[in-house]
């Protein structure tokens, strides 16, 4: 891909409050993304609202439809009970709204919508068929709650799968694979799933009033029968398992020579501080530390500032290499090529390691099976989003990553700070240029090659948090697109017959979750419409229920993660965190909207 062809990067280089430029060639990879006007997502929400009102009115007030669907949703099978939100209507309304903004040609939009709808109808149709057959053969029937939740999950998954097909995505790459640990991983996950079902059922049988109340809040992945207890329980069981494994794991003193590579694009304002922090960490590290700063097409004083900081450093050796072609992965690959040690650590130029960070991370490599080590990026604490970010990090890196690690399912180790066995980075083809998520990509591939990917929350470092909404938007659109880019490039893990738990379970779950997040703001609107219009006299949805799902559940999880990590002080950020979650959902919607549509020729050649 020609990097210089990226029209987005030319002329319009936004600057952050600190005056430095954060926009780079990697902000919006050419061909894969399109520039997204600020009005696109609001327009999608307006179209979605209109569509929802029309469908809700039709199914409740048009006599023929009301008679055909007394359940007040497009459910074609027997059922018991009622639902709180007609999720099939919600999903179809969202598909219509999203399709109107996807791609540039009318034909492309219609085709995308029809494929979404067709696949959705096929899969929920199969679910209904199972229900009909079960009813005829054994009198088995689902409650409408269960049908609705499954319909929602299917709707998310179909959306992500079709976006992967129709969006402009990186080409499929060779996927290095080794069966080592894969069977054990599946067995461990299966045991955790069985245990979680047992716990959820046990709690359910106690008939606690609280559980009964929460069951009536059958909104999407948030709460409801099954999801309410089962998924959080599963993550908790895995978290306990992962923590126990970390405690029992043998730790030997290990401090081999290590090379630290730091890609830097216009980082003159911070690079000296970053190098100073590495120097302080090198002082307490027993092995030799070499730092390679990779100046990547900077237009500021990065080279001069970095060179001065390196010559001031007392506990490390270092040099600056100029990589004039823009692209972070190009710089990183140059760094890997220059690395002569068995281990390499990559650090973002705006990441400040703590004195013990390097020593703590490197200890994990005393085990020969460890290929990648990551830690926990804490926020500096002085920005508008920092308190919310702290809770987000505690939940993601201090809780979910530990849970994924329990069954060797960790996919991404963030590039802000990541240690690798150098040879493995070379074995999997280095860092990929021209897409988002090159850090996730490399750790996924090293993991699939039969190595352990460790995410240790006690390896703490400070990572900058955007200070303006514009910068946050740029960062999050990049991050949220990465799950699609990584899945597309590594599609072989998803669709080969190899036993890859990451490819068959974790990545699809992440895709489903990404779609769920993109649909969270529309769902809030849908809940409000359903409540206010009150077309459905049998409806059980309450305003408290909508609030519980949107605000209560995330607050609960955030608080839990803070306590599990012993960071009681972080609880002060809960109100901001809850708002931040909604903002993040909105940015996920913008992020999926910024994915360009693939020309049909490109799609066909990719499918082959």
């Amino acid at each position, binding site marked *: 891909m020609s990097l210089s062809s990226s029209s987005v990067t030319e002329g319009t280089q936004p600057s952050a409050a600190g005056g430095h430029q954060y926009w780079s060639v990697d902000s919006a990879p050419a061909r894969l993304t399109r520039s997204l006007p600020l009005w696109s997502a609001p327009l999608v929400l307006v179209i979605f609202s209109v569509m929802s009102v029309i469908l809700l009115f039709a199914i409740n007030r048009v006599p023929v439809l009301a008679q055909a669907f007394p359940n007040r949703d497009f459910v074609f099978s027997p059922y018991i009970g009622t639902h709180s939100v007609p999720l099939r209507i919600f999903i179809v309304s969202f598909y219509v709204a999203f399709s109107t903004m996807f791609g540039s040609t009318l034909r492309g939009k219609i085709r995308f919508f029809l494929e979404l709808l067709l696949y959705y109808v096929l899969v929920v149709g199969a679910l209904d068929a199972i229900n009909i057959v079960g009813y005829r053969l054994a009198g088995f029937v689902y409650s409408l709650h269960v049908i609705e939740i499954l319909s929602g999950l299917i709707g998310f998954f179909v959306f992500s799968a079709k976006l992967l097909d129709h969006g402009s995505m990186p080409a499929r790459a060779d996927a290095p694979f080794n069966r080592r640990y894969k069977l054990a991983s599946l067995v461990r996950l299966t045991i955790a799933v069985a245990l979680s*079902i047992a716990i959820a059922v046990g709690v359910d049988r106690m008939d606690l009033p609280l559980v009964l109340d929460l069951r009536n809040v059958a909104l999407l992945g948030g709460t409801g*029968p099954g999801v309410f207890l089962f998924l959080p329980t599963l993550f908790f069981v895995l978290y306990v398992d992962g923590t126990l494994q970390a405690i029992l794991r043998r730790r030997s003193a290990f401090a081999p020579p290590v090379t630290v590579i730091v890609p830097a694009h216009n980082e003159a304002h911070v690079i000296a501080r970053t190098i100073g922090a590495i120097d302080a960490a090198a002082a307490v590290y027993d092995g030799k530390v070499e730092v390679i700063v990779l100046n990547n097409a900077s237009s500021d004083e990065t080279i001069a500032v970095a060179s001065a900081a390196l010559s001031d450093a007392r506990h490390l050796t270092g040099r600056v290499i100029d990589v004039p072609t823009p692209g972070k992965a190009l710089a990183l690959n140059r760094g890997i090529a220059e690395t002569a040690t068995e281990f390499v650590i990559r650090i973002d130029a705006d990441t400040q390691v703590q004195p013990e960070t390097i020593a703590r991370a490197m200890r994990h490599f005393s085990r020969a099976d460890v290929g990648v080590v990551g830690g926990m990026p804490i926020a500096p604490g002085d920005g508008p989003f920092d308190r919310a970010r702290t809770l987000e990090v505690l939940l993601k890196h201090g809780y979910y990553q530990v849970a994924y690690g329990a069954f060797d399912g960790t996919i991404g180790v963030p590039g802000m700070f990541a240690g690798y066995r150098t040879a493995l980075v070379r074995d999997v083809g280095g860092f990929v240029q021209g897409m988002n998520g090159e850090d996730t990509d490399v750790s996924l591939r090293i993991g699939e090659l039969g190595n352990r990917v460790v995410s240790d929350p006690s390896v703490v470092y400070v990572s900058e948090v955007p200070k303006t909404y514009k910068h946050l938007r740029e960062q999050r659109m990049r991050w949220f697109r990465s799950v699609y880019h990584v899945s597309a490039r590594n599609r072989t893990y998803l669709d080969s017959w190899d036993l890859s738990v990451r490819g068959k379970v974790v990545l699809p779950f992440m895709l489903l979750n990404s779609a769920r997040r993109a649909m969270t703001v529309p769902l809030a609107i849908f809940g409000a419409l359903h409540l206010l219009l009150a077309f459905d006299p049998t409806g059980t949805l309450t305003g408290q229920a909508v609030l519980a799902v949107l605000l209560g559940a995330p607050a609960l999880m955030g608080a839990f993660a803070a306590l599990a990590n012993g960071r009681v002080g972080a609880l002060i950020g809960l109100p901001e965190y809850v708002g931040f979650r909604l903002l993040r959902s909105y940015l996920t919607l913008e992020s999926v909207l910024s994915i360009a549509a693939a020309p049909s020729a490109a799609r066909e050649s990719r499918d082959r």
Partner: protein
Amino acid sequence: MRYPLWAFLFLFMLPPFAVHALLTGKAEVASVRANQGVIVSAMLP
């Protein structure tokens, strides 16, 4: 032939939910008071 992506739903999502729904009694066997509309009624005996 490639492993189908949507198998994720039928292998890893639906069975745990079905088991959970059955065990907690949210899916019912026999004595169902199913309240279905004209379309579903036409498909049933």
